[in-house]
């Protein structure tokens, strides 16, 4: 089991969700985050002075998956969230040792 963590543009969330649905991946957890990378921030103005805001709104997705679906899912997310401009975001894959579905107590891949 793997945990995919993807940081994407807020405007691509729906596309990504659709792509995942198509792959049969239904479960995911979404967090509103702010990110910084190569993407330039914007400046904000406050009473005649400018301030650089370089933490930009992003969406962070967490998706737990069985091993075999990971590649597909990563690709799906990639395609759906790519605009080609700086700031598209990142995908990280991390191993999961155990997974539990709280409702049923199921463990492991069934619990996903």
């Amino acid at each position, binding site marked *: 089991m793997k945990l995919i963590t993807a940081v994407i543009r807020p405007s691509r969330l729906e596309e990504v969700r659709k792509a995942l649905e198509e792959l049969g991946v239904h479960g995911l957890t979404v967090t509103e985050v702010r990110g910084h990378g190569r993407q330039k921030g914007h400046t*904000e*103005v*406050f*009473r*005649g*002075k*400018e*301030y650089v*805001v370089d933490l930009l709104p992003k969406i962070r997705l967490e998706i737990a998956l069985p091993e075999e679906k990971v590649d597909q899912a990563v690709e799906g997310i990639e395609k759906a969230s790519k605009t080609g401009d700086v700031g598209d975001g990142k995908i990280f894959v991390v191993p999961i040792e155990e997974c539990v579905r709280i409702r049923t107590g199921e463990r492991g891949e069934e619990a996903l």
Partner: protein
Amino acid sequence: MWRSPFRRILGFSFVLTASWATAASAQDAASEISSSDTAWMLASAALVLFMTPGLALFYGGLVRSKNVLSTMMHSFGAMAVIPIVWFLWGYTLAFGGDVWSVIGNLDHLFMRGVSWEEPAEGLAISQLLFATYQGMFAIITPALIAGAFAERMKFSAYMLFIVLWSTLVYSPVCHWVWGGGWLGGLEVHDFAGGTVVHISSGIAALAAAIVIGKRQGYPKSPMMPHNLPWCALGAGILWFGWFGFNGGSALGSNGIAVLAFTTTNLAAATAASTWVLVEWFFRGRPTMVGLATGAVAGLVGITPAAGFVTPGGAIVIGAVTSAVCYWFVSKKESFGYDDSLDAFGVHGVGGTVGAILTGVLCAQTLGLSGFADGEVSRGTLVGLQVLGAAATIIYSFVVSLILLKIIDAVIGLKVDPDTEVAGLDVNIHGESGYSI
């Protein structure tokens, strides 16, 4: 006895010109209470009171969310305590019988002898209505100062400060200008409080910003406003309430009230437009904060002039006040103090600009200035305005400074650094502005 700006004009106009006298419903020497003047003044008093919650939002939206409540408490705290001060001794110090042209006597301590049946001298509203209406001005004035030390002042020190300041600065200055004191006697023009309210509070704000020192991280870290819709709504409420502030300062439902109402609206609009245009030009972006701040600057600028200038004059006042305040506010970092929300930059600077422009633009020909055309030179008029502003600046600065130093010595003005980092709301007020 106190003298209203309105009555002062009237006094003159009787001698010099009666051309516009019919518009003034308050003029009959007989001076019975007018039910219609009462209606408008009751509405105006309510409007002025409503400005203080508006100010709470305007300021509250501009601070960081961890300090929203402590900032709003400055305004609401003034609503809670100043009416009592005004009732007990503030009113009589401002409008009691004149003592040496500098202060009112104690005739009306506890509002003794302030009748709800007898008209105020020379007016067609009752003494009590006059006192209540004036009390609303006393509430908002100290609350304006709070913009200077938002996000770092102790609530206890603040409350103590405004009680003392209201007593030792507001009431005397109010007496000087409107209560029969020396500035009013010299015919310094202040229609609705450019000097009494805005210069006095704006200068106190400067003193406070200097004494209390900067916020941690200022000016390096950006301290962005946490909720601009609050700020915009606050500005909207202020604009709305200002009709009672300036329109009501005619002290009756008459032509001067209509004029003041109109000039107020035009100055606010022009100033808002000016600020937005200036920053659009220099910074490339027209901002909501700019529009709101500009509107308030314009309202400040027109306050001393509202009933003395033509609508065209109001447009000039709005544009100039706004441009000067913009320039000042955008440069403030270089002055080395931290006036968090520009209480000095808008009220002090804008009030002074407005006071002087009142001299420049007050309409002599129409008799609005209280002088017939040619009777006194424009230079004299402007000179008097400068004098009035200067006297208030010096007095308010010195007394405010002394008060702040004493309070600092006795109980301390500034919260401890940890509280400042964590936010005043949680540490001082035991509350968070927002939860789930």
